């Protein structure tokens, strides 16, 4: 493990302090900073300049696949593979196929949503160490990476403290 500084993290007890710090960090054009919070905070994504998630597109595509797959299976089995007359209904009883077609849409769409979320977040992830155990409790953290162009150790530390950080720590 080298002792190269990877970044600086500031811990806050108040979401408003975190938001202030995040705004300051954005004002300095920091691109790689990320926050850690016990619960989602509205507006933080835009402050940090994060793009809207693409999860919906995965859902849409897989949902449509489920829809076509479901109807395809029904029509194939009932009208092509072995057509059987049941109760005088047509072989391709489309109205009767809607419920299962719908369920397949939801099933595939829903499972794909979870899969996409885990993929985009690279979870499960048991390797990276936890910054602070109280982040999942009541602590808010802002991480500024040393990769930033205008990164200056004392400046970032100053920023954190000015915004009300209770502690700053070097990560390295």
């Amino acid at each position, binding site marked *: 493990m080298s002792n190269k500084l990877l970044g600086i993290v500031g811990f806050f007890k108040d979401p408003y302090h975190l938001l202030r710090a995040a705004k300051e960090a954005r004002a300095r054009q920091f691109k790689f900073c990320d926050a*850690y919070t*016990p619960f989602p905070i509205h507006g933080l994504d835009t402050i940090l300049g994060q793009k809207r998630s693409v999860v919906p597109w995965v859902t849409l595509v897989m949902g449509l696949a489920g829809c076509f797959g479901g109807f395809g299976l029904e029509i194939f089995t009932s009208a092509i593979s072995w057509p059987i007359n049941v109760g005088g209904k047509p072989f391709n009883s489309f109205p009767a196929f809607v419920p299962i077609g*719908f369920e397949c849409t*939801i*099933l595939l769409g*829903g499972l794909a949503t*979870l899969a996409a979320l885990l993929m985009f977040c690279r979870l499960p992830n*048991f390797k990276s160490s936890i910054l602070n155990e109280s982040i999942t409790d009541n602590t808010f953290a802002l991480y500024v990476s040393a990769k930033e162009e205008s990164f200056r150790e004392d400046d970032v530390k100053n920023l954190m403290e000015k915004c009300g950080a209770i502690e700053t720590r070097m990560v390295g």
Partner: protein
Amino acid sequence: MEATFEQEPLLNPKKTLTDVNIDVCKPMERLPSRSWFVCFAIAASLTVFGLCLFVHQLRTGMGVWGLNNPVGWGIDITNFVFWIGIGHAGTLISAILFLFRQKWRTSINRSAEAMTIFAVMTAGLFPIIHLGRNWLFFWLLPFPNTRGSLWVNFRSPLLWDVFAVSTYFTISLVFWYLGLIPDFASIRDKAKHKVRKLVYGVLALGWQGKQSHWNHYEIAYLILAGLSTPLVLSVHSIVSFDFATSVLPGWHTTIFPPYFVAGAIFSGFAMVVTLLVIVRKVFQLEDYITMVHLENMNKIILATGLMVGYAYGSEFFTAWYSGNIYEMFTFKNRALGPYAWAYWTMITSNVIVPQLFWFRRFRRSIPVMFVISLIVNIGMWFERFTIIVTSLHRDFLPSSWDMYIPRWVDWGYTLFSFGFFFTFFLLFCRFFPTIAMSEVKSTMHVGRKTPETEEFVF
């Protein structure tokens, strides 16, 4: 009433973020109380009793049920519809109220979703128990086989059920688990014991609360809510199709889908109220599951009860309006025939009793709501019983009329279903956080003052 317009705080305003973790995790960190063990023992023995019944049924045959021609569906399907319906409130709270930005849902969604999952599990057993050759249940799935391939009949609403119920179970589980991830992480970080840390750590998947993760997480949560909403409507609609696609008077009517959905939500909310009144007391969560939550749920019970009443009226009116003598007879037979006691139990419990919730005093009284919620549960059970049995026992041909008298096996399975459900629910209360901690934290500011100097953010 006071003429004030301050939003009533959802939680006890003195609670801080840390308190949420401490209070919610408390029941999981100490040994269960004696009463928990007593309840669990009762529930588990009922489950074992059910297994014995099933063995008895396998050895003897379906004749152990009180079912016979013309009533081939009785308490088995009543229980199936009843438990599926119970599940619907959980999805309504977790998905529909989420889409409608009802912040009060955060204190109750976790336990309601748990209830959904266990109720669907319970319900799913009944069609399988009810099969003639239970061991061939997998014939319900479309897989290539050596019989042709002989496929399943996709035109049958019973098959739609298979897909609907299994999709509902899967998606509810995914949704529930998604909500649990940040909370598992909280427990992991709070845990002192190694095994505990490991187990919850694995369940949390390494969640760290990163903003870039929350970003995806929130969207995924929103989408699953968006998918669950039509899903929940479809599930009970499909259950209603089991009846409505037939040509039997009293079953074949177009309002069945929305009517069943409203009834499901109605009974489900009654069950949530029953459970939460107990849970908040036993686990000392009165500061989190407050009067605001209970009152709102009672309002929903009133609203859905009215919808159910509307459907009863619409059916009765149309039976007359249609000029169909069989249809009219079925409804007369329901109200005045040999099962009139079940019908009037249903009307009293579902339409008349919930009207008490028009009064704020009753909506906010724990004993009143507890009793009403029990009555509604009973009423909704009888609604399914009435629909199923009265339509079957007297149809077009008077020569084939007969009565259905449930046997001890029928009732035994009903008891078992409660035991099975509560076994899981009690385990859930012990090992899982009964309140969605991270979601509660995100709504704690409701009804509290924003610091003067800060910009409005949430």
